[in-house]
C-alpha cells in the first residue's frame, strides 16, 4: 500500500472536501481560536451548550486535508454529547495519535476517526490532526475554570 493510499483514504478526502458543521454559531456559548504553531493554520471553534450538553458545534477553518478532515470528524463525534463524554472522546483520540503502539479503535459510531490512524506515521502532521481537538479541550477547560470561579 503506498503512502498516498493510506493517508488520503476516501473517508479523509470526503470530510476534507465536504467538511461537516463548517461555519459560525452566532451567540455561541464558547468560542475558541487555535493555531498550529508548525504551519500557522488557524481555526475558530464555536460551541453552543445546553447545560452540560454540547448542543451545537461549528468550526471555521482553512487548513490542510488532515486538519480539515479531523475537525469535521470531531464535530460529528461530539455534537449532542455531554461535556464529560466529549472530553473522553478527545482524550481517546489524542491517545491514539500520540502513543506509539496504542491501537485504540473507535467503535461504529465514530469509526471515521480510525481513518486518521495513518497520520501517526507522519509526526509533523499529527499536529494537523490534533489542532481541532486541542482547541476543543482548551475551550472546555476554560469553561470549567470559569464555572468553578463563579
Amino acid at each position: 500500500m503506498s503512502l498516498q493510499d493510506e493517508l488520503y483514504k476516501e473517508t479523509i478526502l470526503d470530510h476534507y472536501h465536504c467538511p461537516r458543521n463548517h461555519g459560525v454559531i452566532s451567540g455561541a456559548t464558547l468560542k475558541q481560536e487555535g493555531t498550529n504553531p508548525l504551519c500557522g493554520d488557524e481555526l475558530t471553534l464555536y460551541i453552543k451548550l445546553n447545560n452540560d450538553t454540547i448542543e451545537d458545534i461549528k468550526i471555521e477553518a482553512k487548513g490542510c486535508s488532515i486538519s480539515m478532515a479531523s475537525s469535521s470528524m470531531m464535530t460529528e463525534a461530539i455534537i449532542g454529547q455531554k461535556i464529560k463524554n466529549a472530553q473522553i472522546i478527545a482524550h481517546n483520540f489524542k491517545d491514539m495519535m500520540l502513543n506509539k503502539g496504542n491501537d485504540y479503535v473507535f467503535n461504529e459510531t465514530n469509526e471515521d476517526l480510525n481513518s486518521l490512524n495513518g497520520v501517526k506515521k507522519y509526526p509533523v502532521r499529527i499536529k494537523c490532526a490534533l489542532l481541532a481537538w486541542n482547541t476543543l479541550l482548551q475551550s472546555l477547560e476554560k469553561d470549567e475554570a470559569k464555572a468553578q470561579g463563579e
Partner: protein
Amino acid sequence: MLDVKKIKRDFPILNHYIDGKPLVYLDNAATTQKPKVVIDAISNFYENYNANIHRGIHTLSQKATIAYEETRLNVQKFINAKSYQEIIFTRNTTESINLVAYSWARHNLKAGDEILLSQMEHHANLIPWYELAKEKQITLKYIPLTNDFRLDLSNIDNLLTPQTKLVSLTLMSNVLGTINDLTSIIQKAHALGALVLIDAAQAIAHMPIDVQKLNCDFLAFSFHKILGPTGVGVLWGRQKLLTDMPPFLTGGNMIASVYTDRATFNELPYKFEAGTPDIANVIASNEALNYLNAIGYADIMAHEKCLTAYALDILVKQENIILYGPNNTINRGSVISFNLNQIHPHDLGQVINDSGIAVRAGHHCCQPLMRQFNITGTIRASLYIYNDEADIDILAKTLQSAYKVMGHVVTR
C-alpha cells in the same frame, strides 16, 4: 559548468535510497547536504585530536586549537574581512542576529529610534527586533515589495530618517529567491548614521560575499546552509563596533582576569565566544569552505542560473500553478516557491514527498510575507550544486498527479 554527476558522488546521502527511491533533495534552502570530506573531518577530529581548546598546553589541545583557528582564518578570507578578530563563531544565523540585538542594539538604541526591515525577512531577522522594539519603544519600518517580488525602493528616502539607527535586511529571500541589491540602501543608511546588518543565511550559498565591498557593518550566516555541519554560525562585524560592544554570553574563555566581583574581558573575537564552542563542527566547517572554493562561485552561479531558468520554464506551464518570486533569473537565486490552486501546501508537500522528493511546505519562517500574499504557506523547491534537470522533471511529473491524489476536479 559543474560536473553534477561527479559532485553527487561526493555526497554519500545522494547515493542512497529513501523508502526505496533515490533521493531528490530540493530542500537546500532549509539545509544543504554534506560532502564526505566534511563528514570525515568530524570523525577525524574525534578519532585523532579531540580536546578542549585555547587553554590546554597538551598536544591534542594545541592541535585542536590550531585547527579551530584555521577555520576562522579561512572564513576571514572567504568573506574578505579585514581581520580574523572580526569573525565570531555562534550556533547559527539566528544567534548571530540576537548577539547584535542584545549587545549592540540594546545598548545603543533608545525610545523613538527606528529600525528598517523589509517585508521579505525571515523570523530570525524579525523577532529579535520585535522584542527590542517592545522593550525600548523603538519603531520598526518595512520596505514593501514590488509586484515582481523585489524590494520596492521608490519610497526609500522617506523610510530612512535621521531616527533610523539600524537597517537589517536579507541579501537573498529564502522564499522568493530574490537577490537584493543593497548598494544604494547601504550608502543612504550610512549617510544618515545608521548601521547595516546583512542576513546572508541564503545568499552565502549562492554568491561570493565581500564584506568590505558590500560595506555593511554586520553580516550573519550559518554553515549548515553551505555544506557544513549544523551548530556553526558566523557573525562578522567591524572591529571598531565589536570592540565597543559589551559581551553577550559570558563565562569561561571570554574573560581576561576574574576577581570576586568583576571581570575584564578577553580580546576579540574571544570576548564573544563563551564556554566550550562546537569545536568539531567549527573544524569541519573549514572543509565546507575548501570544497566550495575548489568549485568556485563562478561555476556555481552559472549552474544555478541555467537550472533555475529551466525550472521556472517548466513550472510556469503547470496547470493552476501560482509562482511566488521573480519570473526571470536576473538577480534571482535558485529558490522557487509556488502553490497549486486549491491544494494546501501541506497536502501537496506530502504528495511530492511520496515520490521521493524532498521539498519544504509551509511558511518558511516568513509568516508576515505569507500574510501579505494571503496564504498560509507555499511549496518551496530550492536547488543546489548537486541538482540537475532530471530532478526538476520528476518534480513536474509529480505535480501533475496531485489533483488526482487529493480528489480534486481540475479546473482550468
